Structures are given as structure tokens and as C-alpha cells.
């Protein structure tokens, strides 16, 4: 597919779901900052599945992934006082920390060449891959991914889920670096626009 599908209609239910979640998680993080372990337990229930999911996808090694994911959850606790809602939702904060830590650890533990060459089976974004906890939760982003060209979504998915750098994606896809950068750029911009309801 080289053309772009039309964007799905803005979804008020999706937005209100996200807004409610953001507010609730914000309150939990505030309580964590005050030392409330009950609040952390609540936060863990909502956020740990995504943190573990990201670490597993990027790091592949299950033991390493779990170790890193737990480190991330503890970091959310210890940095709860520094959380600022204007910098983004708690959810995005958790996913960002999980992704960055996983990428940092993988890049320092395994050499770049090994990772580029020994690719695990092409990862497809299908629902049977792991037990998706909340099928509904991913519906909007799946719909929005459909608005990207195949090349765009392939590049974005490789960059994000495999934790690859621009150059590593270019090597993995055997495509020129400027082309790959352009696809990842336009892909994420389009994805973001769709999710924001434009």
C-alpha cells in the first residue's frame, strides 16, 4: 500500500477514556510522592503491563527485560515527586522511561552488528503475539496505524519495537538512511495527528 488511508473519525469516547486515565494516574503519582505504597500498588496494576511489554519487545531476553521493567517501576516511585503533568501523561512517562532504559541496556549489552544481523522473526503486530490484556485499549492506535503506508509503519515499528536507531533500521530494511529517516518522520507525524483526532 503506497497511498494513505483516510483517518478514522475523531473518537470522543477514546479521548474521555484517556483523559480519565490521565487524571487518575496523576493522583496516584502524587500519592506516591507522599510515600503512599497503596497508591503505588494501584499504579503498578495499570502501568506495569505496558512497562513489561515494552521491555520484553525491545530486549527479547526475558530475564533482562523483567529486571529492567522492575527497575522502571521503582524509578516511577522514586521520581514521582518530579512528575509534571504539563510534560505529558503518567502513561507516556512510564512508556518513555521503559523504552529508553531498554534501548540503552540493549545497545550496551549487545553489539550493534550482532543485533542488525541476527534478527528475530519479523515481528508482526497481530493480536495473537502475546495475550493482549485490553484488546479495546489498542484499537485506536491500530486504526491509526492503518493510515500509514506499509513502508512508513514498517519503519516506525522497527524503530520503536525493536529499539533500533535510524541507521540500524536502515541496515535492517536494506534501505537508504535518508529514505528510512523520512518514513519514520512522516509515519510518526501522521500517527500522532490521527491519535490527536485531526
Amino acid at each position, binding site marked *: 500500500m503506497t497511498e494513505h488511508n483516510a483517518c478514522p473519525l475523531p473518537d470522543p469516547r477514546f479521548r474521555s477514556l484517556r483523559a480519565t486515565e490521565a487524571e487518575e494516574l496523576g493522583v496516584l503519582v502524587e500519592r506516591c510522592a507522599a510515600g503512599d*505504597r497503596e497508591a*503505588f500498588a494501584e499504579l503498578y496494576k495499570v502501568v506495569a*503491563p505496558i512497562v513489561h511489554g515494552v521491555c520484553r519487545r525491545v530486549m527479547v531476553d526475558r530475564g533482562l527485560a*523483567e529486571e529492567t521493567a522492575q527497575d522502571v517501576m521503582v524509578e516511577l516511585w522514586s521520581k514521582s515527586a518530579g512528575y509534571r503533568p504539563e510534560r505529558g501523561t503518567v502513561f507516556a512517562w*512510564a512508556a518513555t522511561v521503559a523504552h529508553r532504559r531498554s534501548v540503552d541496556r540493549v545497545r*550496551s549489552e549487545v553489539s550493534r552488528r550482532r543485533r542488525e544481523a541476527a534478527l528475530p522473526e519479523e515481528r508482526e503486530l497481530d493480536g495473537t503475539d502475546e495475550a493482549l490484556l485490553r484488546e479495546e485499549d489498542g484499537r485506536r492506535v491500530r486504526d491509526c496505524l492503518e493510515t500509514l503506508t506499509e513502508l512508513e509503519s514498517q519503519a516506525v515499528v522497527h524503530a520503536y519495537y525493536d529499539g533500533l536507531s535510524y541507521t540500524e533500521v536502515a541496515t535492517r530494511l536494506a534501505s537508504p538512511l535518508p529514505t528510512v529517516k523520512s518514513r*519514520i518522520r512522516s509515519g*510518526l507525524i501522521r500517527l500522532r495527528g490521527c491519535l490527536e483526532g485531526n
Partner: protein
Amino acid sequence: MSAMSNERRDELLVGLALDALDTPEEVAEARRLLHQDPTAAAEVTRFREAAAELARLSAVPPPAGGLDDALRRIDALEEGADASPGSAQPGSSSAPPEAGTARAEDPTAVPEGVLAFRPRRRLAPWIAAAAAIAIAVPSIGLAVAQHQRAAVAEAGTARIMELLSQPGAKLSSATLASGQGSLIVVSGGNGTDIITRELPDAGTDRTYQLWTIQAGGDPVSAGLVGGGDAVNSAGSQSAGTVVAITLEPAGGSQQPTQKPIAAVTLG
């Protein structure tokens, strides 16, 4: 200020949000953009929200006992934080750890040269940060006090303070082999600042060069510095990374040509 193409700007911001930038230099460049341009910061926030939506697709049940394990780690953390700043944790080895070697077996031990500083929540971040610097490097403590009095919002100092005010921020320092000048590294979740203080003049045909060396990796240049004081930013570094400074020919080198004149290992 040089004009940056929209393409390049998007490339940096998207790359930052996806952790896809190729080098620490580009990460530093992207972070500088965020500091200088509030619209850039807002864009990255929005890109990160989009990436977080992608993350939802990979959600998996955490391992059994995961919550208990996390709570146990938190308890261990809180106990460690009750130690006053300036005291090294028990269990650290007496010899400085070398790059690439295994870390001390006790995961809560603080390697020599690293001051783990976790400000208590009620302490004003500014005061806590200034205290930490003063304890670690007396000469820099004086400089901080002067800046405070003059209330000069120097970009370098503001950034150091920002990093240090986060819980979990770490300060590592080493004096140069010659005895004059210091290397101080402030590392936090959001980045790493490498401060060089009172370096002797390198001379016209030489320059100091900073390096980050991840465990098992090759040295990566973190920039050139001259004599005197300077602050360089690098991206967030993983534990065990060594930050080193060498003296190189003017213009710098691809890889270090000399042994480091100072080095710290990040905890």
C-alpha cells in the same frame, strides 16, 4: 543561531521520542533544541504520547510476585536514602572500578567516586543540589554560592541544578592526575552533564577531549573542551558507563590516543 531545516528538526525530535538517534551527540543536540525552543519540547511530548499508544499494543501480564518484588526494592531504596549525603555506602570496593569489569556484587553498594544523592522530598531542590556539589567538590561549591548570590541564571548552572534536583541524581567526580583541575559528572534520568573545572591550559596544539565508554563498548567522543571551566551535555548513560578525559592533538581524535587523565564510573 544557525537555521535548522524543518526536516532536520523533525528528525531530531522524532528520533528523540523514539530513542532512535544514532549518536550521543545527536541526543545532546536534540536536548539543546528542547531547552532553547518550548514548541520543540511540546512536540516531543506529543510524539511520546503517540509512542506510548504503540506501547499499549505490547502489554503483557507482569510476572507473578512482581508487585511484591517492586515494593521490596522500594523499601531497600528508602533505607539507603536515609544515609546522609557525603557518606559512602558500605560494601564498596577500595579500588576504583575499571571500565568493563563487573560491578560490586552488592547491588546497593555505591562504587568509589560516586555520590548517590537522593534529596528528601521536603528539602528545597536548589539548597539540596548546592549542598551536594559543595560536599563533593569544595571549589565548585564556592562557585555555586556566588551564582546564587548574584542570581545569574547561567544556562549551564540551571541545567546542572535541574539534573541534581531530581531524586536519584548522581554526582561523580575525580581530580586530574596532575592534581590541578576536576572532572565532575552529574547524571540523572534525563541526561548527563560533564563539568570540567579549572583545567590547566592545554596549549595551542592540544585540546582536552571527553569520552563516554559503555561497558564493553568503544569510547564515544562527548566533545572537546579547553582550559578553565566548561559544561558539556551527553544523553542519559547506562550504569557502568565510564566518563573520561584525555589530552589529544588540537581538533580532537576519533579514538583516545592517550590514557585518561581522569575518569569516573557512573553508578
